[in-house]
């Protein structure tokens, strides 16, 4: 018999637990909020439970997708996890995999971020499931996300189709008490079944695969209908119903309970928002006079309704078309939909929240300061990572998506080069992990097309924003073992770069002189892309903090309280003492990096005891 126990698990841990309980043997991911903890939890659980799995932090989501898919081709259960914009990177693979189908159960976990809280879009992955023609599960809680993993594997194997699990931030980063089953060790032998008409289908066979895929979807949809959570015992005056999916269902359930309306209105939870049964949707239209649809973030259920005249949703703007469907928003919608009396609410006054900043001692801060000092009039394309916070230091002008900064610099250069007005200096900042992910192709393209700009790779040997996953430079693998490191320097040299410097950005004057030299190189007759690797390990790593030199900093009487350091360096450990009218060091926050001594124009910040 299986033994089990109750645990508190975060949604991402619950998904990991579901994968391991259901015999997943390969999982791959690229870190991204809110999905990052799925793979790290899997690595930890596999270790604790001594389950043999291949787990990897792949170089990007496309690689992760294809690694996992291959295991499924061989007949074993597999998963790939990522944030929603990561799925854009893997979309090419997904579209084709839907046609070829799978053998071992294959789950694509794509975590959405309505809000958005940590993303450049609040796109709805369920739409990409619909676009790719695969079914998608939409959990309302960690518990449900875990249960759906088992259901998704079963569905995927029954129909030989990739299946998406789409949690949102409020599921990924919710914690809940839930039941965990014991983990059975199982050996699934893998085998390759040669079938070129399927695995290597040419366009002619792709037509047949497409037809097969459509048939699969029809068969899945027929079974995908729902009954109301409870049958109304005291029907409400209005003959309406509510369809909800994802965490919006949890919110609306709590609200109806609070309003004592659970037994008065038909509430449906749509667990698989695509593909929905046509009969079910038609039945809704003929049964009810009004249908409220609550889903995040795009109208996926709504668009499947053939008759939308009775629907109150996003398309008729009854439900907001952007942002998170928070309980307060849903409450207002219920009041309107059910014609409830408006209760007088005390007006809410929300003060300003404190925005995020780079950590005290962060090497990126030093790099940005040096860039602003050396090349104040440059254009600054940047990228996705902690260093997006270089915005605060006015050293970030553009952020598009992973790896875009280098192509954008190239594009800016070529446009300016068309005119005779002179070409501005362009300084790109990109982190090491992002460079490996999607930056390197941009660099190759830029060199080939003779672009000229300065590329500063902010190499902190980690993926800091998402929980310090190792980068290829270090070569540490997801299970903690050592892989073959891929050196940044070697890669850059191989891309044909002829100007390459490495410098520790803590030495601001050195970085400034390299930047000035790089600018000269860019505009010289033989110039091209100049690369500076600004390397210093992330100070969020405890080991780094322990081993790095720690200076005691002090502010002397020379400080006039001009605020230059606050404005241009923005270290949380430097604070203004308004009564003394000068800055001081917050000893609790300061990690003693000593960089600020190069920042004060008056030299008022010094190392205690002088140096």
């Amino acid at each position: 018999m299986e033994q089990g126990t109750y645990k508190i698990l975060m949604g991402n841990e619950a998904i990991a637990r579901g994968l391991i309980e259901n015999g997943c043997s390969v999982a791959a991911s690229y870190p991204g909020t809110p999905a990052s903890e799925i793979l790290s939890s899997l690595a930890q659980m596999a270790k604790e439970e001594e389950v043999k799995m291949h787990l990897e932090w792949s170089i990007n989501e496309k690689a992760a997708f294809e690694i996992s898919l291959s295991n499924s081709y061989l007949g074993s259960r597999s998963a790939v996890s990522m944030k929603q914009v990561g799925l854009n990177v893997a979309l090419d693979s997904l579209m084709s995999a839907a046609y070829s189908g799978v053998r071992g159960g294959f789950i694509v976990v794509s975590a959405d971020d309505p809000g958005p809280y940590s993303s450049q879009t609040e796109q709805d992955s369920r739409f990409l499931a619909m676009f790719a023609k695969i079914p998608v599960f939409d959990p309302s809680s960690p518990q449900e996300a875990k249960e759906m993993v088992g259901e998704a594997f079963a569905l995927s194997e029954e129909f030989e189709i990739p299946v998406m699990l789409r949690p949102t931030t409020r599921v990924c980063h919710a914690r809940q008490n839930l039941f965990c089953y014991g983990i059975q060790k199982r050996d699934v032998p893998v085998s390759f079944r040669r079938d070129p008409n399927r695995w290597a289908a040419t366009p002619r066979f792709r037509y047949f695969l497409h037809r097969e895929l459509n048939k699969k979807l029809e068969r899945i949809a027929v079974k995908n209908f729902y009954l109301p959570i409870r049958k109304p015992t005291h029907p409400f005056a209005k003959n309406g119903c509510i369809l909800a999916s994802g965490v919006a269902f949890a919110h609306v359930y709590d609200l109806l309970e609070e309003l004592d309306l659970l037994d008065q209105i038909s509430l449906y939870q749509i667990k698989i928002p695509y593909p929905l049964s046509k009969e079910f949707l038609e039945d809704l239209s003929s049964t009810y006079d009004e249908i409220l649809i609550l889903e995040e973030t795009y109208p996926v259920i709504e668009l499947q309704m053939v008759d939308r005249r009775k629907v109150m949703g996003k398309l008729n703007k009854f439900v907001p078309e952007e942002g998170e469907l928070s309980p307060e928003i849903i409450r207002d919608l219920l009041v309107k939909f059910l014609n409830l009396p408006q209760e007088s609410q005390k007006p809410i006054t929300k003060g300003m929240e404190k925005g995020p900043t780079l950590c005290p001692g962060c090497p990126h801060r030093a790099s940005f300061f040096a860039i602003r000092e050396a090349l104040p009039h440059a254009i600054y394309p940047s990228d996705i990572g902690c260093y997006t916070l270089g915005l605060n230091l006015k050293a970030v002008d553009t952020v598009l998506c992973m790896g875009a900064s280098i192509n954008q610099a190239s594009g800016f250069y070529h446009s300016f080069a068309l005119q005779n007005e002179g070409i501005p200096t362009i300084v790109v900042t990109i982190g090491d992990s992002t460079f490996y992910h999607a930056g390197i192709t941009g660099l190759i393209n830029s060199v080939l097309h003779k672009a000229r700009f300065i590329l500063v790779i902010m190499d902190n040997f980690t993926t800091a924003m998402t929980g310090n996953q190792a980068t290829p430079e270090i070569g540490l693998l997801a299970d903690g073992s050592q892989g073959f490191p891929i050196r940044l320097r070697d890669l850059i040299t191989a891309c044909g770069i002829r100007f390459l410097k490495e410098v520790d950005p803590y030495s601001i004057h050195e970085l400034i002189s390299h930047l000035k030299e790089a600018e000269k190189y860019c505009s010289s007759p033989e110039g091209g892309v100049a690369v500076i690797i600004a390397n210093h390990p992330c100070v969020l790593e405890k080991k780094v903090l322990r081993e790095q030199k720690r200076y005691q900093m002090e502010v002397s009487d020379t400080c006039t309280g001009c605020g230059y350091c606050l404005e241009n360096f923005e270290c949380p450990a430097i604070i203004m003492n308004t009564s003394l009218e000068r800055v001081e060091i917050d000893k609790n926050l300061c990690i003693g990096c000593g960089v600020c001594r190069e920042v004060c124009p008056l030299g008022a910040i010094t190392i205690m005891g002088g140096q």
Partner: protein
Amino acid sequence: MRQKIAISGIGGQGVLFLTRILAEAALFQNEEVITSEIHGMAMRGGSVISHLKVGGFRGPLIRPGEVDVLFFLEEGNLSAHSYFLKNEGVAYVNTMKPGNYRSIEATKIAIEIGTPLVANLVLLGYALGEKSLFCSEESINFVLEKISPRDQLKINQRALMMGIKRSGNTRAIR
């Protein structure tokens, strides 16, 4: 017991750890619990707030004006997050300034013990001592032993005790 709790602070102050302790305490007491946390960019020194609901809720979020107990690890967040508090709710604030809340200089006490990082536990201890929470002192102690890193268990326990000791004798208006 049904209770809605929120924890407000700045990324890095231990908002998530405090949330986890309370969630584990609910598990220890066989109560259903669901929480919501903020990870990612906001964790870099920005304002964060996490929610915790004990007693059979499905959704992880609390509406404005519905929080029973609100912890402020950072008094600077008072203006940003006070709107979550119920009229009859109580706020525990890490500050020396008196106000319409329960106040304790948690960071100062934590530094005296050895690290400002345990201010969250001082604040928790204070609320625990005042019997404002769904959970008992015993549950919290059990959880601390279960989830504290070995080298931090002692200081965590000490911080909690300091908070409990200080309950009932600070200059608070309410």
